[in-house]
């Protein structure tokens, strides 16, 4: 199965992890981004709507993975991003990294999710309990890796 994809079907983190498990690897690090009940400004959220340039997004995921391997060493990376309407508690994105040792897996996982948020052509509309909704951009400085 392809290790980089954008899909409107719910994402099962375990299925993404399964793409990077290998008998040579002692470590799998996984990040799951989940729709939470409040916006950064505290407003109650009822759901998110994601859209993507699917071909460009998956190509970007692959470039990010290649960069992570160049920086941190051999590892296997899978990235899945949901599109469409998501309710609170649903998984929007999963990054999974398999590696020989834990440090590399964790480093590559953080790099990949930070870069995905900064670069991948994916957009998010946040819907609020008061019936309004807004397109939300990721800030360039938003939790960039230290």
């Amino acid at each position, binding site marked *: 199965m392809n290790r980089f994809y954008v899909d409107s079907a719910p994402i099962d983190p375990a299925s993404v992890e399964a793409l990077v498990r290998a008998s040579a690897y002692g470590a799998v690090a996984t990040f799951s981004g989940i729709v939470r009940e409040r916006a950064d400004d505290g407003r109650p959220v009822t759901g998110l709507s994601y859209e993507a340039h699917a071909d460009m997004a998956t190509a970007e995921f692959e470039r990010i993975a290649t960069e992570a391997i160049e920086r941190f060493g051999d590892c296997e990376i899978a990235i899945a991003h949901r599109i469409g309407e998501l309710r609170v508690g649903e998984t929007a994105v999963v990054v999974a990294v398999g590696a020989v040792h834990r440090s590399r897996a964790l480093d590559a996982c953080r790099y990949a999710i930070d870069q*995905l*948020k900064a670069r*991948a*052509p994916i957009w998010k509309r946040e819907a609020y309990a008061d019936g309004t909704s807004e397109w939300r951009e990721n800030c360039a400085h938003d939790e960039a890796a230290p």
Partner: protein
Amino acid sequence: MIVRVVAFARLRELLGFDRRELTLGDGADLEQAWTALAQAAPAIEPLRGSTRFARNGRLVDAGERLQDGDELALLPPVGGG
């Protein structure tokens, strides 16, 4: 020449389409495509500075020339993850 324009998020909403064909003079660049779109939908004008362009899936400068059959993607600031 005819190019396919694909638009996302706020740009998609303001333009009123997610994809359509756009007829341009031969040799037109991305800036000229934007100008043509903004004439039909002036509400996109303020977003020019934050918009990035991709030609056939690759990010390019606004001075890049288009060819018949190209896909021109209009990309607002991203919000994935």
